[in-house]
Each structure stands twice: as C-alpha cells, then as structure tokens.
C-alpha cells in the first residue's frame, strides 16, 4: 500500500549522502528561523491585542528584537546555585530542547501529493520525500519525544534544589503526563483513517478531492472535529502555554521550574518553549489539516506544498498567541478535571464510535443507523453515569447533614 522513503531503497552513494545533509541543514535552518520569527510574532501580536506597541526599536517593526535579546543572554553571568545538583542542572536544558528538535524531523514540509506523484520529488536524479525522515512509526516518535520532554522540566525543577522550581516542576510533570494521555488517545482516530503510523501516509490520505468537491479531505473533517479539538487543547497543555501555564504561574511560583536558571541556560528553556510551539503547530497541521497537501494553481506544482504548509502553520501560530492574549489561567483542579474527566473519556468514546462506523461501513451496514445506535448507547451510558454520580452526591450530602445534626 504505502512505501518507505524511496531515497534509501536504491544504492547508497554520494548523492544520497548529499541529499541527507542538505535536508538536515534546511530543516535546521527552517526550524530556527521560524522559532525566531515566532518569538517576535508573539510579542508583537500580543502587544497589538492588548493595545501596546511591543518591540519597535531593533530593526523595522522590531523584527531584530529576538536577535538582540539572544545576544544579550550571552553576556549575562551564569549562576549555578550552591544547592543545585550540578550535573543534572546542566543536563536539563538538553532534555528540553533536543526532543523539540527531533519532532521536526518527521514533519512533511512539501511535495506534490497526487496519486501518481505520491509526494515524491526528484533531486540529483534520486527520488525522495520532502521531509527529513519518514520512519513507519512517525506518530509514535512524536509522542515519544513529548514524553522525553517531560524530563527536561522535571529535572530542571528537581536539580535546582529550591522550593519554587520543585513545586513548579512537580505540577508541570503531572500536567504534562495527564494531557499526554489525552493527546495519544486523540491521535488514534487519525491513525485509524490512515491505516498507518507514518506522517507521510497521514498527508497522503488527506490529499486529493474532498467531500462534496468543496470541503478539503482533511482529517479534521473526516474524524468529525472532536479529536482535533481534543488534540489542540491537550497540545496547548503539553506546551505549558496559557491558559495552561500553571507551571510558571508568576504570582505563585516566580518562574516555575526555571527560576534558578540564568544567562544562556535560561535562554535555552525559552527557545525550547517556542520551538515546541512551532513543532506542535506543525504536528497539528500534519495530522489534521493535510500538511503540505492542497490545490495547485499557477507556476510549478512543487511550489505550492511549502506555501500551503507555511500558511496553515501560521494559522496555528496565530491561534496560540490569540489564546494567550485572551484566556485567563486555569486553576489546578480545573486543569486536572478537564484532562481526566472530559478529554480522556470523550476521546476514548469517540475512538470506539469511529472504529464501529469503520467496521460497520465495511460490513455494508447503514452508516446512519450505526451512528444513531452508537450515540444512543453513549447517551444511555452517560445518563446512567450522571444519575449514579448525582445519587451518590445526594446520599453523601444527606449523610453529612444527619452527621451534623447529631
């Protein structure tokens, strides 16, 4: 059905080596440039949304502000607290930044996704995909990276040997693992449609003629929006971005897990945070919005892949800034409630619903009948559960009342 990256199926020669090298350099440069852009964009847009000017001194529209800040970080004194566990303190920024980096390697950035081209481009007479690598378990690689990123936060807080960072990191870890569960479960819906775990295949199934000829064939629509919404919410929580930024709730925890970090070591956490925002947007675009696939108009067809990818990516970068500028921070109990009592049950139920629709469709049953029956079963189960919870709450109240009278 699907194939691995054709680049490696032939003989391994100089051309292949050059292509791999070029891919690494391009992906590296693209990622860094987009991260620098994102930092500026966030500050500028957030300023606009809250009726401020934002950076406007360094370069036109303050676009060089990020660079200026970066240079400043190099000239700041680096302080390792006496109580810190030195080796782990130094290790933590690596664990934060490198996973964010790795995720970008499985994101398809371009290519023409038609039935005959299959997203393959020819460079130096060799066929390849416009993505750094396409391991058959690409989606699991993304999830694995996000589970390693937890260590960066956890160890940074633990190794500081200080109260605020420790509290911040324990909170953050619990938050990140809770939402990672929801993240993983919502991806399953997409995997079911693609029948594969490779990110290239994900884009491939979303390319081409859409529903009714008007709507695109995105997983966003094909999976019924719910997994997308869950993924975006869980992804925002995974990034520790507002409204889920309890990790560094300034009023309570100073800077959270990176309170004790200074100079360039702090800058690395800062960089990792924005890099994660960019890669998370790229993941959302790949899994739910068809990545670089899209209609081509004029000029070479190859040009449109990166254009579609960049514009979809920009949409989500804008969304993340918008969320930050608009929403107040969650309370910790609300955060945990949302993760465990709403997102996980819904994503599990939705996954079962999609799987039954899928199987029923193959068996030739009527889709609407199956969907109706499934919704009915879900509704009955929900009502029974809600009834049980309400009854138990009433009984407990009753018992408490009686207890207080005695």
């Amino acid at each position, binding site marked *: 059905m699907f194939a691995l990256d054709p680049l490696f199926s032939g003989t391994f020669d100089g051309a292949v080596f050059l292509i791999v090298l070029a891919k690494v350099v391009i992906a590296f440069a693209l990622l860094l440039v987009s991260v620098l852009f994102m930092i500026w964009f966030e500050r500028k847009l957030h300023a606009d949304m809250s009726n401020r000017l934002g950076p406007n001194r360094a370069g036109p529209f303050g676009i060089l502000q990020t660079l200026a800040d970066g240079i400043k970080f190099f000239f700041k004194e680096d302080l390792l607290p006496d109580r810190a566990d030195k080796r782990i303190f130094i290790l933590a920024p690596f664990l934060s930044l490198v996973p964010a980096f790795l995720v970008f390697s499985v994101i398809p950035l371009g290519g023409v996704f038609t039935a005959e081209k299959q997203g393959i481009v020819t460079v130096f007479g060799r066929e390849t995909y416009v993505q750094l690598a396409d391991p058959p378990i690409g989606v699991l*690689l993304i999830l694995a990276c996000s589970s390693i990123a937890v260590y960066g936060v*956890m160890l940074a807080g633990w190794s500081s040997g200080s109260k605020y960072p420790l509290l911040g990191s324990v909170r953050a870890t619990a938050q990140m*693992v809770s939402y990672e569960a929801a993240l993983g479960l919502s991806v399953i819906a997409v995997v079911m449609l693609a029948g594969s775990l490779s990110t290239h295949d994900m884009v491939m199934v979303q390319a081409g003629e859409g529903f009714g000829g008007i709507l695109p064939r995105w997983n966003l629509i094909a999976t019924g929006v719910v997994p997308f919404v869950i993924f975006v919410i869980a992804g925002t929580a995974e990034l520790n971005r507002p409204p889920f930024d309890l990790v560094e709730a300034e009023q309570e925890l100073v800077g959270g897990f990176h309170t004790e970090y200074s100079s360039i070591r702090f800058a690395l956490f800062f960089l990792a945070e924005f890099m994660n925002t960019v890669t998370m947007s790229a993941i959302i675009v790949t899994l739910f919005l068809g990545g670089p696939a899209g209609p081509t108009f004029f000029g070479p067809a190859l040009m449109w892949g990166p254009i579609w990818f960049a514009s979809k990516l920009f949409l989500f970068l804008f969304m993340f800034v918008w969320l930050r500028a608009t929403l107040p921070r969650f309370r910790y109990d609300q955060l945990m409630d949302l993760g465990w009592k709403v997102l996980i049950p819904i994503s599990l139920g939705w996954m079962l619903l999609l799987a039954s629709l899928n199987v029923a469709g193959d068996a030739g049953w009527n889709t609407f009948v199956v969907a109706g029956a499934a919704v009915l079963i879900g509704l009955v189960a929900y009502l029974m559960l809600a009834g049980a919870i309400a009854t138990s709450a009433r009984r407990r109240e009753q018992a408490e009342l009686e207890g207080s009278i005695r």
Partner: protein
Amino acid sequence: MVAQNVFFYLLAGIILFSAFRVVTSNNVVHAALYLVAVLAAVAAEYVLLAAEFVAATQVLVYIGAIIVLFLFGIMLTRAKLGSDQDLTHPHWALSAATAVVMFGVMGYALVDQFHWTATPLPADTRLVSVDGSNSATVSDSVFTAYLVPFEVVSVLLLAALVGAIVLARKD
C-alpha cells in the same frame, strides 16, 4: 552489517555502564536516571533489530511513564533527595552473587535455545511486515496468538490502580 555491529557494541557498553551505575549510585534520583539511560539504549538496540514499534513502546511506556512514576514515588517518600551514603544495603554481596547466578541461568537458557546461530536481519522491513510497517505485524499477533494475555493486561493494570488508590486513601 559492520556499522550495525559497531553501534551494537557501543550501545551495549552504554547499557552495561549505566546498569552498573544504577546499583552503585549514592543518589536515588541519579540511579533512576541511569535506569533511563539503560532503557533508552535498549530501545536503540531494538531499532537496530528492526523492531521499531517495540522501541517506540519502550520509550513511551518505560521512559515516559514508568520512570516518571518511580520519580514521583521517590519524591513521595521522606527519603533525603540528595546523595545518601547509607543507601548501600549491608548484604549487597549476597545480592550481587544472586544477580550473577540469575545472569548465568538466563544466559544459559538463551544459548541453549539458539545454539549461537545467527538469525540474519531482514534487509528491508517491508519484507517481513504487513502494509509497510511492523506495527501491523505486532497487532496481528496480539489479536491471534496473544489475545488472552492482551485482555489479562487490562485486568492487571486495573488491579494495580485499585490497589494504589486503596493504599493512598485514608478511609
């Protein structure tokens, strides 16, 4: 094949060193992190064996969940979180001897089973897999030969959770 062998011995070295440090480290959290290194290197060995799905599972479940659970468990106790000189058990020599015996038994079982025959790696995973990925192959065996263990896993996990909740709650 040469490159694969080089990587194999490199990773094996990392595994041995880290495993040794897990038991000799004076700091519980450091020991847990060395365990992460062991697990990560084992995951890399799985990739070398073309068992990518198992490798991803190793990272997701063991590194991403179980060691995090360990670390929360360590932070839960009143144990001093810095280095601790009396962490070494007085009967460590006995445990070391047991470990050596266990290693011998397991090594013997392996050698006895395979008689030093080398099973060649498939040159291309597409040859051994369904639909171009070996996760499908894993799935096929779960849903045929290992169906009962698969269902039992869910009950095991449920029991672990219920046990932890019963212990954690005072009433």
